[in-house]
């Protein structure tokens, strides 16, 4: 296995690990089933995806990652295919498209991109589910009880694990940068 393949294998494992963490964190720590007013959705996989997207420069690879992990996420967690499957690649292409705004990789930039991505993703999912009558929540309830707490929790977690996450994702795509 050459070094390029090994790095790609590492990236896939990294995203998969984050994927499982989403479900397990929800199950183990945020499992508020009896009083379901505030809903916090851990989005660790999105953190991994955003960090990798900002470092990988091959757009085709990004789209493939987006579709594959989108389908897995939808099928395993949602049971409805078409939410992450569409929104995730769109998001990744969007980040890739506005890369020219990036002056240098710093924490503030990463966090604000993550914040925007999370808002885009959750709002997109809400709108699609509303359209398909999977939910009857109104917009204000969604913002107050789902989007707000989710953003808050995830930003705090992102802040805490930023340094290992950034180092890890930089190491996983480093080869491609050096080769250019």
């Amino acid at each position, binding site marked *: 296995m050459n070094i390029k393949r090994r790095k790609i294998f590492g990236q896939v494992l990294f995203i998969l690990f984050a994927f499982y963490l*989403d479900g397990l964190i929800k199950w183990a720590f945020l499992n508020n089933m009896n009083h379901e007013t505030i809903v916090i959705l851990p989005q660790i996989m999105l953190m991994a995806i955003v960090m990798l997207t900002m470092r990988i420069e091959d757009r085709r690879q990004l789209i493939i990652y987006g579709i594959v992990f989108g389908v897995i996420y939808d099928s*395993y967690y949602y049971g409805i295919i078409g939410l992450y499957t569409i929104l995730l690649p769109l998001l990744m292409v969007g980040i890739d498209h506005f890369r020219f705004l990036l002056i240098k990789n710093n924490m503030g930039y990463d966090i604000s991109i993550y914040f925007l991505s999370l808002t885009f993703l959750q709002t997109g999912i809400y709108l699609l589910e509303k359209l*398909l009558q999977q939910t009857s929540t109104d917009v204000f309830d969604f913002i107050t009880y789902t989007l707000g707490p989710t953003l808050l929790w995830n930003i705090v977690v992102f802040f805490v694990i930023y340094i290992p996450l950034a180092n890890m994702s930089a190491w996983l795509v480093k080869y491609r940068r050096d080769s250019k």
Partner: protein
Amino acid sequence: MQKFFSNKKLIILMILIIVTFGLLAVTVNIRDKKSTPPVVQQVGNDVVSVVGGVFAYPTNAVKNATSEFSDLYNTYSENKRLKTRIGELAQNQAKLEVVQDENKKLKQELKLNGTLTDYSTVNASVLSRSPSSWQNYLTINRGQTSGIKKNMPVMSGKGLIGRIIEVDKVSSKVELISTNNELNDKFAAEILGDNKNVTGVVSRYDSSTGDLVMENVNSTKDIKKGQSVITSGLGGLTPRGLYIGKVYGIKKDNYGMTNSVYITPAAELRNFTVVTVIKSSVHGEN
């Protein structure tokens, strides 16, 4: 024609929109109407869930350990209370055995093969919970190979927690009772009164109080706070006698037409790692 297809981005956008809605509509339809998802999706979900078991096992161990630790705090008072109940329990158990035996013999006499109270169980452990606001699903590690079918009720240690919504080969998804999906969260229920049982349908979940709401109740005259609520077995999918919770109060709806009974669910929907799937012996039309 050349002009029409010249804007590539517009075409891509159009195809994207069509694909999105197509996929969504098809999968929602399959979930609601078919008993299993397509084979590709089943295999995919199974692979993901089998690998996920590697991560779920240590997580469940930690979860068990932490809940044991929190149990230690109230051990003393609980022990005292339990000691008073234990004599009563032994007596009840002996009585239950005798009655069950008698019941079995009587059924043989009458040539009754299966009644609404007959069921068998399958234990499964929980792999994960969906990080989603409106799909309140648990993934469990048993599927078609263990005989699980769609719509079977699921219990945790103390009471009813939900219903199977998707079955794959070796994994399945449980939709929790605390869901506001209007199609799937209804259970035919019965309140055990002093002399007469009252039937109704558990149809809603009040997320602000954490109570289940039972509607279509025929009379509220005999209902008192603290009475037990069980599944009634009417409707065919759920056997009779699964414990749901205790009556908390009665409220009239906004128009004063019907009464809603509020039920505190028995299942503590937090500290469990193993669930029990109930297979009813009597099958209604599915």
